[in-house]
């Protein structure tokens, strides 16, 4: 029963990672950049929803929608101002810019909301008890898992069935060829950032609801872990991000429960390293050797 409880909390945590990782992987797939500021968008989403619920007394669902709108706009602005001018720059320059954006978001949050952790009111409270109350699953965990599955399905349909989704896949395959086929590459990249940021907002709300605390650096560690999850599953692959996120969450939860709380992150990272040594492109990634 204990095991089951850890497993569920692992899947729930993994679902959050998966939602963040989906954003990471889409952006990486299309813009070929490591967007280190992605984790901080999560934090902004958390703060916006908290402010909406506490200061403006809006119902949780409206708060979530508001956070999504703000983060989407934020994501598109960041992409337009900071990343778009660097489209043809070396990848390291883009990486450093993303780090600059990350610092910017963290320090802006510090000025607006202060450095002290704020307690976050979960969007739904309470827990479901099964097996005569031996196992209790919080509603927020259920909501997180359900959201992750819904997002995964909608995103897969979007990528495979819609015009815009096809444009995205075309851009991630070959930007030049996509442009020659009349696809507006810049707009497609903007849309990708918008979707990724909206997902980050949802992840922010779910993450803060589970941990009920929020500060300007809240997003960085989940951001890094979600990135790890994306690489673990095979960066650029949507099912890979999903699988990587869930597995990482379970590994982390189990490591905390049965091995060591202190070394939980190390164990997660060690699993990533071992996986990459066996499969250099992640679990579901395709390894493309350099053409000679």
């Amino acid at each position, binding site marked *: 029963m204990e095991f089951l409880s850890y497993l569920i909390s692992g899947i729930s945590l993994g679902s959050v990672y998966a939602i963040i990782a989906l954003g990471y992987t889409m952006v990486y797939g299309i813009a070929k950049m490591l967007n280190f500021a992605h984790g901080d968008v999560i934090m902004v989403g958390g703060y916006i929803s908290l402010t909406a619920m506490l200061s403006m007394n809006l119902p949780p669902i409206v708060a979530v929608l508001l956070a999504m709108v703000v983060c989407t706009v934020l994501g598109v602005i960041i992409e337009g101002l900071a990343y778009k001018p*660097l489209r*043809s*720059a070396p990848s390291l320059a883009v990486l450093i810019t993303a*780090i*600059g954006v990350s610092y910017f978001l963290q320090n802006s949050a510090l*000025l607006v909301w202060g450095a002290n952790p704020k307690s976050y009111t979960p969007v739904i409270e309470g827990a479901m008890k099964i097996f005569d109350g031996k196992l209790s699953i919080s509603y927020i965990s259920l909501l997180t898992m359900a959201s992750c599955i819904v997002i995964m399905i909608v995103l897969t349909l979007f990528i495979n069935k819609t015009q815009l989704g096809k444009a995205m896949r075309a851009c991630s395959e070959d930007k030049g060829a996509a442009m020659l086929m009349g696809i507006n590459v810049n707009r497609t990249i903007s849309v990708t950032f918008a979707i990724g940021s909206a997902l980050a907002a949802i992840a922010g709300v779910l993450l803060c609801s589970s941990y009920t605390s929020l500060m300007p650096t809240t997003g960085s560690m989940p951001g890094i872990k979600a990135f790890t999850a994306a690489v673990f599953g095979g960066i650029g692959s949507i099912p890979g991000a999903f699988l990587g996120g869930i597995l990482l969450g379970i590994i982390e939860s189990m490591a905390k429960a049965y091995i060591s709380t*202190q070394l939980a992150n190390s164990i997660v990272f060690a699993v990533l390293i071992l996986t990459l040594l066996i499969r250099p492109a992640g679990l579901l990634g395709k390894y493309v050797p350099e053409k000679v």
Partner: protein
Amino acid sequence: MKNLKKTTKQDFITYLAVILAFIAITVMGDAGMLSRSFKGQLVPICCYIVMAVSLNLTVGILGELSLGHAGFMSVGAFSGIIAAMSLQAAIPSPVLRLVIALVVGAAFAGVAGALIGIPVLRLRGDYLAIVTLAFGEIIKELINCLIVGVDSKGLHIIFNVSGAKTVNDLHMLEGGRAIIKGAQGATGTETIASFTAGFVLIMISLVIILNLVRSRSGRAIMALRDNRIAAESVGINVTKYKMMAFVTSAALAGAAGALYGLNYSNLLATKFNFNTSILVLVFVVLGGLGNIRGSIIAAAILTVLPEMLRSFADYRMLVYAIVLILVMLGTNNAQLKGLLAKIIPTKLRKEAK
């Protein structure tokens, strides 16, 4: 030989500039012209310069992105502290102890570099970056579990996996003292680091890296960066030269870490986290990839800059972030570059070069 002479002259200018800066700062310090806070920053500046120069070997010269350089600094810092503190009774001279600590720090970080390099260097590009990041975090957590003390019987080390152990679990004899207390980090360290030592370490790092780059081995390392497949086709052993660059870089970071660690009486393992790695990477990128002199200047200025921005109070890190983004946009975007060229007169730019 003409080519060699030109580069030798360039290197000579770098050495001379560092020596002159050292003399100037020492003279000004003796004359009481430096603020206390600036004096306190001298050793960290030296450490960060060595960090930046050594990371430039991996990122700029070998061409592999490493996001875990702080991990090697951490290994060097804590192994250096253990060496210096456990030899306190045996070797009375602090200078000799400092030298030993730096060598120990470099050796341990070098070994860590070799252990990590074997798996990491098989990967490429962003995968290599994420794995170095992962190793950096692993090192941080492992050191966070370390409890070390010394008594008349020697070193006592335990590994606090459960998080429940304390210094008492070392079961030291009377008179024994703790050096590293797990999550509380190193406490009560005797601060034997000095600006002079920092200067010497910078000079040694420069000699090692600049001479390496101008040698047969350095050429092979740069060949791997420019075109790995072509390098293999002329018989260059990829693993050997990647390891050479990576381990040298790690060892120098370890020496820098040891110096850094012995500059503070208290030091936490969490100091050497992902953000520190990124900080050093920013020095390298802003100074110019492969440009050693640029790394020195960027590390020195950017370590002092947050102090100088004190008047901005809460806004200083925000300003730092904005400056960082603008510099990257200004140096990498063609249109912005053109705009800058119009604003800044050509003559001025030529002189600046």
